[in-house]
């Protein structure tokens, strides 16, 4: 078990930030969010405001702070254009160097530039290192996870919804919630269970030398499932559909749900403090093969509604759990069968005790 104070103690949170988040490659976005040259997106990570920028040649991640007088450059979360600070109109090249201010450039030996963070891309997934990472992205993720990310990237063709849900709870409660299915029968009865996704036992898999884990839950092929197959095969083609629900946790902050290989949820956790976490999610559907726009639109509408309901159901309980953890005098219990949680706990403890996995 994780010691209960780890879920609310600010000092432990600071240690986690240093030991876990500052030393890992962190998922920060998808290349399809900034598809064109000069497209940018801003995300906030542990007080770092980052610009994900498409330079036309590569994806770069800059600090969203002007090196001149420290103004925050972009206030919006997304846009397109040259990086220009509004305070003194300093503008920056696609490589992050100051342009158009010769006097200042001549006075300094070092040409001013935006701070740039190390960045790696796997498929569509962009990873950033807030400080110097202790290992390569391939070593951190492992071969299997790299393969999963590359494969899923090909299916993330149409983004249908995105939102950031502010959770008043510790980031680890969210991880522990999404990597087990035992709670589904209680709180997702009208959503995940009714849709046939969590009626069977999950088949759990680990990459033993890494901190990631996955499960596959075979889809229930009852009458409900058969009905669903009628429109699913019309939309996506039966050969493209897997009859299962897959979930992947990629340590420490990337969560992917894959429903039948036709709709996906890609989420990242942005811990704000020990008791608050931003759950940033995007829903996608795979390529459709029908021209029936009525069917496509209704499927998208149902998928969004479904996803929002599931997340709201979880949020309600996670915030109650956060309140409860401070009141109890022990560290709680986990099901023996919740082996993904045990794996997560083991990884978390290793990092916190030894600073490495």
């Amino acid at each position: 078990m994780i010691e209960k104070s780890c879920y609310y103690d600010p000092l432990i949170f600071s240690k986690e930030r240093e030991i876990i988040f500052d030393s890992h490659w962190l998922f920060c976005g998808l290349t399809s969010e900034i598809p064109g040259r000069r497209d940018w997106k801003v995300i906030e990570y542990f007080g770092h405001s980052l610009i994900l920028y498409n330079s036309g040649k590569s994806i770069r991640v800059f600090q969203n702070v002007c090196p001149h007088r420290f103004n925050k450059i972009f206030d919006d979360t997304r846009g397109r254009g040259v990086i220009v600070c509004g305070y003194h109109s300093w503008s920056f090249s696609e490589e992050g160097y100051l342009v158009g201010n010769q006097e200042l450039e001549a006075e300094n030996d070092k040409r001013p530039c935006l701070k740039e963070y190390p960045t790696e891309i796997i498929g569509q997934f962009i990873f950033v290192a807030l400080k110097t990472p202790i290992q390569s992205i391939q070593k951190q993720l492992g071969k299997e996870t790299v393969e999963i990310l590359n494969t899923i990237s090909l299916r993330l063709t149409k983004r249908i919804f995105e939102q950031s849900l502010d959770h008043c709870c510790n980031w680890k409660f969210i991880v522990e919630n999404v990597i087990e299915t035992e709670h589904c029968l209680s709180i997702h009865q009208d959503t995940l269970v009714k849709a046939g996704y969590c009626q069977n036992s999950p088949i759990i898999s680990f990459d033993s030398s890494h901190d990631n884990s996955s499960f596959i839950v075979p889809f229930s092929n009852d009458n409900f499932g058969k009905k669903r197959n009628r429109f699913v095969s019309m939309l996506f083609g039966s050969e493209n559909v897997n009859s299962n629900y897959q979930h992947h946790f990629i340590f420490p902050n990337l969560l992917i749900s894959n429903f039948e290989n036709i709709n996906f949820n890609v989420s990242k956790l942005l811990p704000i403090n020990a008791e608050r976490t931003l759950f940033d999610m995007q829903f996608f559907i795979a390529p459709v093969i029908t021209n029936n726009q009525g069917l496509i639109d209704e499927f998208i509408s149902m998928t969004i509604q479904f996803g929002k309901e599931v997340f709201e159901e979880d949020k309600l309980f996670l915030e109650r759990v956060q309140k409860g953890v401070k009141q109890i005098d022990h560290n709680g219990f986990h099901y023996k069968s919740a082996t993904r949680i045990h794996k997560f706990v083991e990884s978390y403890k290793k990092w916190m005790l030894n600073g490495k996995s």
Partner: protein
Amino acid sequence: MTENYFFEKFLEQFEESDLSQITIDSEFRSIEEWSSMMALVIIAMVDEEFGITITGDDIRKSVTIRDVYNVVAARKTAV
């Protein structure tokens, strides 16, 4: 497409409900099995059987099975 044929196809989508009291003028939401997913099943059935595209809004605005039939019939005539 006859009214009866459409009604028959509509009811075929429901496999677990007692449909003995259901007529074409019944409110389809009163069928026990009805759910938001059934709207997709009906949209797919209309495409497959009649080659017509209807939308989720068409279903939401309809109350009885006849209302849905009227949407399909009107669209079929327009084609």
